[in-house]
């Protein structure tokens, strides 16, 4: 089962919410290695490394890495060409 020792990008919702004002799991990302484009929610997330390591579901290259220390958060996005966040032109006045 070692090759299935991961969850998915859905679990990044909480940790990413600490950093960003928007939900990142519904955002679209492109893998810098293979070019696969898809929702962050569908990446493969390994939690047993230090921090959270998100790999591309297509080529398994590391797309992003998030390490939380007591005083800061390290977000390494070197494996992503872009992250596209759905965002309306104008925010509604209330929920």
């Amino acid at each position, binding site marked *: *089962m070692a090759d*299935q*020792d*991961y*969850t*998915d*990008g*859905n*679990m990044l*919702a*909480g*940790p990413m*919410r*600490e950093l960003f*004002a928007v*939900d990142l*799991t*519904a955002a679209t990302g492109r893998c810098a290695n293979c070019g696969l484009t898809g*929702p*962050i*929610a*569908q990446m493969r997330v390994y*939690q047993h490394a230090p921090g959270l390591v998100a790999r591309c579901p297509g080529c398994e290259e590391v797309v992003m890495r998030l390490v939380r220390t007591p005083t800061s958060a390290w977000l390494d996005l070197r494996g992503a060409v872009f992250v596209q966040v759905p965002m309306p032109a104008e*925010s509604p006045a*209330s*929920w």
Partner: protein
Amino acid sequence: MARAAVPGRLNRGASWRVAQLVESREETGTARTLVLEVPDWPGHTPGQHVDVRLTAPDGYRAERSYSIASAAAGNRIELTVQRVPDGEVSPYLIDVFSVGDPVEIRGPVGGWFVWRSADPAPVLLVAGGSGIVPLMAMVRARRAAGSRVPFRLIYSVRTPRDAYFADELRQRARDDGGLDVSYVYTRETPDGWPSAAHRIGVADVNSHGWPAELEPTCFVCGPTGFVETVADILVALGHDSRRVKTERFGPTGG
């Protein structure tokens, strides 16, 4: 407080808050439903989850994600937690955590694996074991919204005793027009069940799901291997992979 420094609307779901257990009930031999009262709960969309954080007396912290099982209703949310043998968090939540006790939660979070009642597309839900939890939130939200969007649920469990929400699902399939529920048993079937115990396969998904031409939204949740099997079957049956939303629990947890 830091919370006051950030506009609440943008900060939604970002900060930890203290919830209190107000009710706990047995779901199966290995799972309990926890009813939490969360002050100022902003509401949630079915499929979203919360992160639960426990802090030991020595400061050691453990965090886990749990899908919300309930439809949005005031300041109460329900989590149905499965016991993970040797887990760090679930045995505490199931055996020790008592009515009146506080717990830290963050959420609701997650905006991708969610069903919105305004979406008219038919829905296929495929659950493996405790993967039923976020899908049950969708079934309940559909009922709460009075939605007529057709839903089909395929629920794979080891034995009849392992099914969560069995009575409620029976009732909803009877009373909520347009909801079909079918089961796949992997180890032991009920008496007189028409097929032998087996793992979910093409025939199950084909018989109890929607034809791809109807362009349903498919939500698949369960252990990683189960989710990948079902997602592969759906794509092989012609479903657009962009309409197949998955959530994996992974091999461990708890």
